[in-house]
């Protein structure tokens, strides 16, 4: 057979007995960039980089459980860092649990991506081009970086998933009893899994963007994406309502298509919860976002939905029971979550509709997303009529009865993850003051544990909903739809200010809704940093929750701030899988702005990001195993993350020790000299107790050794100011970040020099207003920080 030629299209089915030579494909690959040192790294390839991170940010363990019960030698009591029968110590066992969490998280993203790829190839064929418009040349930074592949069509992702799946299996193998025994190596493996997770997310989002024409840099994309309605109050309950829940958009997209094709867009509401809703809004203009994950149980219990369609991840395990309670038929669309229902994929649509509407079956499985639209829409129209008059909100009498029936036993409080004082609130409602009970609505994470333990059988969730109902009806926010990739042109514009520090940082609120104190914290984080000219890139539930609150002018953060990847921008990047574009933005700063080789060059790019890109993730309500793998993926790439107090239950943190000088020795790549630097960033993963503490912490985690003096003075201004605003005190460590007097915020220079002299004993030249002695190091504008010896240009 002739050798394959570039651009020549053929289909495999046309050919028989063919051997394909990949020689020319390799040649073509070479054209875009020479291959770097680590394409498709295996478990041990990047271990050196991991150990560089792990030696500075030593794994910290806070066991959630002192026992291990994974094999029949057990249970083993590991308390006091004892060893189990297999020889594993408590610390290594916790590294193992962390790896397991990352395995589950990464598998969810990879499984989702692979599933999507199958469905998309079936629907559109494998030749769908990956073309994100004139402003995006580097379309898949993580794919290029990790795999050394520049994907041209979605089919190219077959080999990317082959690679990820093989690595997942190898890493899962390490979990078996009698395999890995070192916590450091477990963590290196977890970091590897985190990287695979980020790659899986990128793959999944690229495939769906390419196939569904989600926003890119073509007209109307990027900063210009439209706004979408967010909040329970935006849903028109006089219409039939289809509620989609989960993360995998094809079934919801098919519902949108069916509504459009049949002229029903204004007659039926298509609303969603969690990431499926974000992605539905990227493909269907009339979609609405009912709520983020934290309100799933409550939105269902309110009876808003006439039909519920679920796909995968973060769906309540008791979804079928909940649907039956509110008389909403359930359509499940994914073989990973079938909830015991009968697979009706190949049945006649009208027959399925009839069974659902008549109540003969509570729900069905339909695994072909292209069959979901017709069934869901036909069902919802009939169910709407059937469910009219059904009121699932408690009557005033019922409400009064229940709040008076409460005996303040406190069982619910002990069961509540947030320890909410429900009994007290009931008592106050019984005596006429409803506010404390209504306030619980936003503080509640919607788990349902309280109701199971109430001996008085009070439907606590319904009682809280009733109390808050007037405000729930007014919950009407606005959010930019998920824009997907950050543009190369945007990176060219902001690369310098980010690396120099004059844009003080990129703040990335991501992930789930297990907040310690309600959704308002999500809004506050965005508002505070956007007003300070940081770049805010949101994804997932935090993107939704931040849209629920408004400022004095009645505007949400998305309406108040522009959507460019630039100072003060508030960008909804998209769903959980879209948050790969945040990794991608950091990678593109290194490759596009700084010209670092990208292809198969993970370690160098991560080293660049760790030393120079002041980005900080915040998963304030991190809950799932995906959040664990997402954070770990950010960490391997050199991006720190802050979690809320529930995040301490992930058991592991990566914390630096500023008091240990040797931990902060890095190399000046210009001449190979070793330099002790300030702790920037101090931690890779840290929990804060309250949002007041988290705000200054995020500002702190944006310091980087590469900051210029101007950049450093801007970062210091915000760090000190946020401390004064929220903690009412100077941070005890602000001096660590001062290298020279020009690092100091100009407006406070004299005051701060005085403090350095008085409190730190630094020597100040008052005539010149300069620091003579004191800082960890002086400021050297030509400093070229790296952690990698191989990057030294000229040895001293």
């Amino acid at each position, binding site marked *: 057979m002739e050798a394959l030629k570039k651009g020549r299209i053929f289909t495999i089915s046309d050919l028989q007995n063919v051997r394909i030579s990949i020689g020319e494909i390799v040649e073509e690959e070479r054209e875009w960039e020479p291959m770097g040192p680590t394409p498709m790294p295996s478990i041990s390839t990047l271990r050196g980089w991991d150990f560089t991170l792990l030696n500075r940010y030593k794994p910290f363990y806070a066991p959630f459980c002192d026992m291990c019960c994974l094999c029949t030698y057990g249970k083993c*009591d*590991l308390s006091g860092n004892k060893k189990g029968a297999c020889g594993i110590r408590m610390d290594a066992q916790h590294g193992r649990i962390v790896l397991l969490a990352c395995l589950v998280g990464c598998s969810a993203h990879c499984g989702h991506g692979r599933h999507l790829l199958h469905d998309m190839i079936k629907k559109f064929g494998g030749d769908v081009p990956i073309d994100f418009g004139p402003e995006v040349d580097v379309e898949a930074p993580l794919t290029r970086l990790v795999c050394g592949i520049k994907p041209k069509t979605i089919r190219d992702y077959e080999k990317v998933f082959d690679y990820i799946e093989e690595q997942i299996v190898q890493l899962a193998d390490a979990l078996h009893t009698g395999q890995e025994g070192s916590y450091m190596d477990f963590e290196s493996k977890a970091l590897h899994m985190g990287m695979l997770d980020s790659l899986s997310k990128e793959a999944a989002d690229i495939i769906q963007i390419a196939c569904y024409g989600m926003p890119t840099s073509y007209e109307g994309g990027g900063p210009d994406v439209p706004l979408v309605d967010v909040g329970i109050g935006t849903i028109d309950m006089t219409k039939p309502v289809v509620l989609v829940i989960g993360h995998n958009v094809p079934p919801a997209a098919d519902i949108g298509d069916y509504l459009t094709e049949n002229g029903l867009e204004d007659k039926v509401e298509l609303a969603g919860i969690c990431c499926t809703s974000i992605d539905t809004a990227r493909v269907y203009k009339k979609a609405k976002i009912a709520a983020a994950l934290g309100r799933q149980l409550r939105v269902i219990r309110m009876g808003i939905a006439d039909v519920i369609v679920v796909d995968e991840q973060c769906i309540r395990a008791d979804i079928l029971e909940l649907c039956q309670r509110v008389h909403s038929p359930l359509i499940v669309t994914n073989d990973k979550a079938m909830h015991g229902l009968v697979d009706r994929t190949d049945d006649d649509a009208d027959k399925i509709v009839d069974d659902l509407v008549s109540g003969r079956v509570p729900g069905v499985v339909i695994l072909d997303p292209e069959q979901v639209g017709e069934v869901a829409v036909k069902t919802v129209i009939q169910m709407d009529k059937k469910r009219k008059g059904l009121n699932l909100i408690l009557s005033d009498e019922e409400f009064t009865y229940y709040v008076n029936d409460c005996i303040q036993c406190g069982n619910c409080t*002990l069961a509540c993850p947030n320890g909410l004082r429900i009994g007290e609130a009931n008592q106050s409602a019984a005596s006429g003051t409803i506010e404390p009970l209504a306030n619980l609505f936003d503080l509640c994470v919607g788990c349902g544990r309280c109701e199971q333990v109430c001996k008085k059988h009070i439907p606590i969730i319904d009682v809280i909903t009733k109390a808050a109902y007037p405000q729930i009806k007014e919950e009407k926010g606005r959010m930019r739809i998920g824009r997907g990739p950050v543009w190369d042109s945007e990176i060219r514009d902001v690369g310098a200010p980010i690396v120099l520090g004059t844009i003080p940082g990129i703040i990335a609120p991501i992930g789930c809704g297990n907040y310690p104190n309600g959704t308002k914290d999500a809004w506050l984080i965005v508002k505070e940093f956007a007003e300070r000219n940081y770049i805010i890139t949101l994804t997932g539930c935090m993107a939704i929750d931040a849209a629920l609150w408004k400022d004095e002018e009645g505007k949400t953060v998305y309406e108040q701030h522009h959507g460019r990847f630039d100072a003060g921008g508030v960008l909804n990047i998209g769903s959980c899988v879209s948050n790969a574009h945040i990794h991608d933005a950091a990678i593109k700063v290194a490759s596009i702005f700084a010209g670092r080789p990208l292809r198969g060059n993970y370690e160098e790019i991560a080293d660049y990001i760790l030393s120079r890109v002041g980005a900080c993730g915040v998963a304030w309500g991190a809950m799932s195993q995906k959040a664990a793998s997402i954070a770990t993926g950010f960490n391997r790439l050199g991006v720190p993350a802050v979690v809320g*107090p529930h995040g301490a239950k992930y058991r592991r943190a990566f914390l630096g020790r500023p008091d240990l000088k040797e931990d902060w020795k890095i190399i000046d790549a210009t001449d190979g000299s070793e330099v002790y630097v300030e702790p920037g960033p101090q931690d890779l993963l840290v929990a804060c*107790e*309250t949002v007041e503490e988290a705000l200054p912490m995020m500002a702190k985690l944006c310091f980087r050794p590469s900051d210029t003096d101007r950049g450093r003075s801007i970062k210091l201004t915000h760090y000190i100011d946020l401390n004064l605003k929220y*903690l009412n005190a100077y941070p005890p460590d602000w001096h660590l970040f001062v290298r020279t007097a020009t690092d100091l915020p100009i407006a406070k220079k004299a005051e701060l020099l005085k403090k350095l002299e008085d409190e730190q004993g630094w020597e100040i030249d008052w005539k010149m207003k300069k620091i003579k002695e004191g800082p960890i190091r002086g400021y050297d504008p030509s400093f070229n920080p790296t952690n990698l010896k191989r990057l030294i240009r000229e040895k001293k």
Partner: protein
Amino acid sequence: MGMEIPFDVANIPGPEMGEVAPPEVIGNYISSAKRPLLVVGSEILRDDFFLETAIEIGKKGIPIAATGHSIRGFVEKGYTENVSYYNLHELTNCLRDPSWKGLDGKGNYDFVIFFGIVYYYASQMLSCIKNFAIDPLIRAVSIDRYYHPQARMSFTNISPKMEEGYKDMLNRLVSSVK
């Protein structure tokens, strides 16, 4: 005797679970420490009384690590003598290292008292101390209104109805710290 129920009911760590003790017993236990540290969190800001209690303990010569945003309260009260802000995760990370120099540069502590910290975060950090700050041993107690099985000693769960009783317990505890 029935088992004490952790404030977060399923928070049962394993065979090693702390005792519930009355204020005087915890107070005496604190008094036995050579280098105790009071670790307070943002919940002390919910009522002036708790802040005052922390300050009283501080005045007895026990240094205070103010975690969360609790430092606010001390600054507002003008009490900054032996109080420093510390992030709880970072602090616990230091505590587990015997060579840590402490807040005053004089070395690590042998005893920590947790007070006013969000329950589940405190529980995780107490777990780290229990399992890893073992040589030399750091003893940890909680004086919150919760049963904390990860601490060596703590109070029982105290309902909001018993808030006055809880305050009284804290008063008794403070007077018994020598």
